[in-house]
């Protein structure tokens, strides 16, 4: 009896080892590519939303999660659907993950996102991230070369934020402050620091970016010179010909790797600088007279 038991235990251990090494069914895990399942070649479409919450889902080459309603909780929204170009498209096997990631910068450009958000050249965004999803290896082998470009709202820690907002045309909408780029400068003795930290305009800030910058040379040391250089961009941002009375041009300086750049900004005219929230960007079809909203 004892002998039988001793013989059985190693057999069980052997079977368990093989099962746990993946040689038997019953182990939770991703289905192998060769599994007898139908290859889904569902064509992704613009405006679809997805729930992507982990770094692994975000960084994967492909995403096969089901689409959800954009009015419901989601983290990603498709703003562009395109195709893998040649010569990579001609490969029988899907290119490496790193090759695809490199491709995303070209295939999912920020300019396309700006169009989708109904932004202009003077609209700068913050707290957003772009990623591209490619066909799975099996879909690639079946001929698919479709690329899905998704936009995410990201927290300061870069994790995707869950939202129920539809991002299509969001820069022209009333809630655009949560995706617009603003700067928070330090206020010391009633004087603003030259530099400022990035934040969204829905958070307390001191300056709103107008998506224009230039290198700071000797001619741009004084604040007045900087304001003068930035004025045309601020006017374009506000969609006005003359600077409204309640608004001032407020550039900030960004030092990056020793290089100094002046970033043009705008803010409500204040007797003494104080943080404010919202955006001065005009709603679609309007011009801003100086009141922040959002």
């Amino acid at each position, binding site marked *: 009896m004892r*002998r039988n038991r*001793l*013989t059985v235990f*190693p*057999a069980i*251990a*052997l079977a*368990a*080892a*093989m099962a*746990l*090494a*993946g*040689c038997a069914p019953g*182990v*939770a*895990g*991703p*289905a*192998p*590519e060769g599994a007898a399942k139908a290859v889904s070649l569902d064509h992704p479409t613009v405006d679809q939303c997805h729930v992507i*919450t*982990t*770094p*692994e*889902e975000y*960084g*994967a*080459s*492909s*995403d*096969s*999660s*089901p689409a959800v309603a954009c009015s419901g909780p989601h983290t990603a929204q498709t703003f562009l659907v395109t195709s893998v170009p040649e*010569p990579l498209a001609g*490969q029988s096997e899907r290119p*490496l*993950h*790193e*090759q695809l990631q*490199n491709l995303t910068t070209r295939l999912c450009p920020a300019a396309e996102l700006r169009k989708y958000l109904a932004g202009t050249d003077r609209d700068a965004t913050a707290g957003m991230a772009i990623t591209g999803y490619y066909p*799975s*290896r099996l879909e690639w082998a079946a001929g698919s070369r479709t690329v899905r470009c998704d936009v995410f709202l990201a927290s300061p*820690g*870069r*994790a995707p934020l869950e939202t129920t907002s539809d991002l299509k045309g969001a820069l022209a909408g009333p809630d655009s402050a949560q995706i617009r780029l603003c700067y928070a400068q330090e206020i010391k003795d009633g004087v603003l620091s030259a530099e400022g930290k990035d934040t969204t305009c829905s958070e307390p800030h001191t300056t709103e970016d107008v998506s224009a910058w230039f290198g700071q040379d000797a001619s741009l040391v004084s604040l007045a010179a900087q304001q003068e250089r930035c004025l045309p961009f601020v006017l374009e941002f506000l969609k006005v010909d003359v600077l409204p009375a309640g608004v001032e041009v407020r550039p900030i300086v960004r030092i990056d790797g020793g290089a100094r750049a002046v970033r043009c900004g705008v803010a409500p005219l204040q007797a003494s600088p104080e943080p404010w929230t919202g955006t001065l960007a005009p709603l679609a079809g309007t011009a801003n007279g100086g009141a922040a909203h959002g």
Partner: protein
Amino acid sequence: MVETKQGKTESETGKPEAETTKHEAGEFAPVPVRSGKNPQPGPLRRLATFLARVFGPGELTLGGGRTPAILAGVASAAAMMVRLFVPGPVGMGDQGDGHGLVCALGVSNVRPWDYAEFTRFIYPGWTPHQFAGEACGAVGSGEAVYSSQLAFLWLGKLITPVFGWGPGVDMRAVGIVCCLVFGLLTAALVAVLPGRASFRILIAALVTAVMADGVFADFFISPYPEPAAFLGTLAVLVALLHYWNGRGSRWLAIVWVVGAGIFTIAAKAEMVSWLPVLALALLWRPHVPSRRSGRRVPETRWWRQRIVPFAAIMVLAAFAVAFLAVQPKRTSELNVYNAVFAELLPNSPVPEDDLKWLGLDPGFLSASGTTVASPRSAAVNPKFSEFQEQVGPAKLAGFYVTHPERLIGVGERGITAMLTPELGYIGSFMEGQGHDPFDKDRRFPVVLGLFTALKAVPVALVAMQLLTLLLGFAVAFRKKSAVGRLAVVVVVAGWLQFWVVMLGSGQPEIYRQLVISGFHAALCVPLLVALISILASEPRKLMLQQPEPGVQEPGTSEPSAATLRDPAVSV
């Protein structure tokens, strides 16, 4: 020192001893056998005698009570738990590879989003999460990752709620499982080692001391497959000792070796290096000298005796091939990339010639020293598909066959990396425990200390392994002890593992990849103690029992399980 007639005893001279001495005293005093030495042993000698009496192996008998084994198992498991959890838990931070394996349990790590953030500390909590498609599996491809470590992870998932660590899996629970398994293996080791209980416990304690070093033990609380490799290795060693001891059913002993071997090989792809060692170990079978000892073993009987080991080797080989076949293609692609761009080219005196030999465009030289994710990666080269078509493991093997001198540099870099087993780029502590980011656990740095000291003279590591190998052969053939065979296996398996890693995986992550080779090297210390103790002990007095007629197993010439016999007597 001359032994004279004067020194002979009464029995030899035939005279009373006192008479002889009196008669010859006037010519010269009797010379003691050990002339020039104090007949009273010094303190060191007394200490050595005491240690030999207390911890020496004594007679190399097998078996003994279960109590020492149970006590050793419980004590080693408890020691490992204390070492890992007191005053606070320590583990090995995840640098991103952990997800590929652990996500198979349907869980996601609770950790900061950014790589720079989550590598600073350990984040042992994993919560339930349903992954779709390529989000679960090898990073970059989503291909399934298989490892016998899944057994420990699954057990850890079972007991995680018991400790109140949530509904998913907590690596601290996995650490507890690993400690218990280690205790079980220690008990088994004590049970199968020859010699006195004190000697066996001493060797088990030294093995525990090796395992308890942070460079190995911290992996117990981590999402990596290394614990399965460590514990699988120990299981193989225990199973081989049992097999060579020749006690009990031979079939059962072989099944244990095969089971432990499969578990070990399945830990990670590099562990396939165990296959040739296991094959040789199984063929180095226990042999009991029969009444016709001295005569040549008939050819047919030689084959008959090895049918079962051959069958076991076939099973192991089939499993190894199957296991390698299901490895993520992405891993082999990265290994080839790293072997060329992170190892071969940056360390080559003539990289242009090497590229030419490999049939690659000279433009790839700009990617020398990169990983596939680097900004200068060869993957962004428009001709990268040429590299994928031209270079593979076979071509790399051909390169080293035709350029053997390059292996010297590879070996040097590998030994240096092996002697740097502490992974400084990932933290050991949980966030909020009062430790700085990337702080390392050095609660019991015996191996770390030894390796750090050996870094001054790296060749000393090889010397230590060679000494272990030679003493292993000496003990195997002169003392007929299975411990000698074990030493040979540990050293050879460590070397094979080393070269598989160095030639297969390349430079990136070399420190973590070589930690298993380092484990083999560290095991040389308890083995050396055991080998020296056995060699220094009294001549072998084995309790041999001849096999009783009529109780032999079918197809074998060996005695039944109940008999106690010579451990690993070799032909």
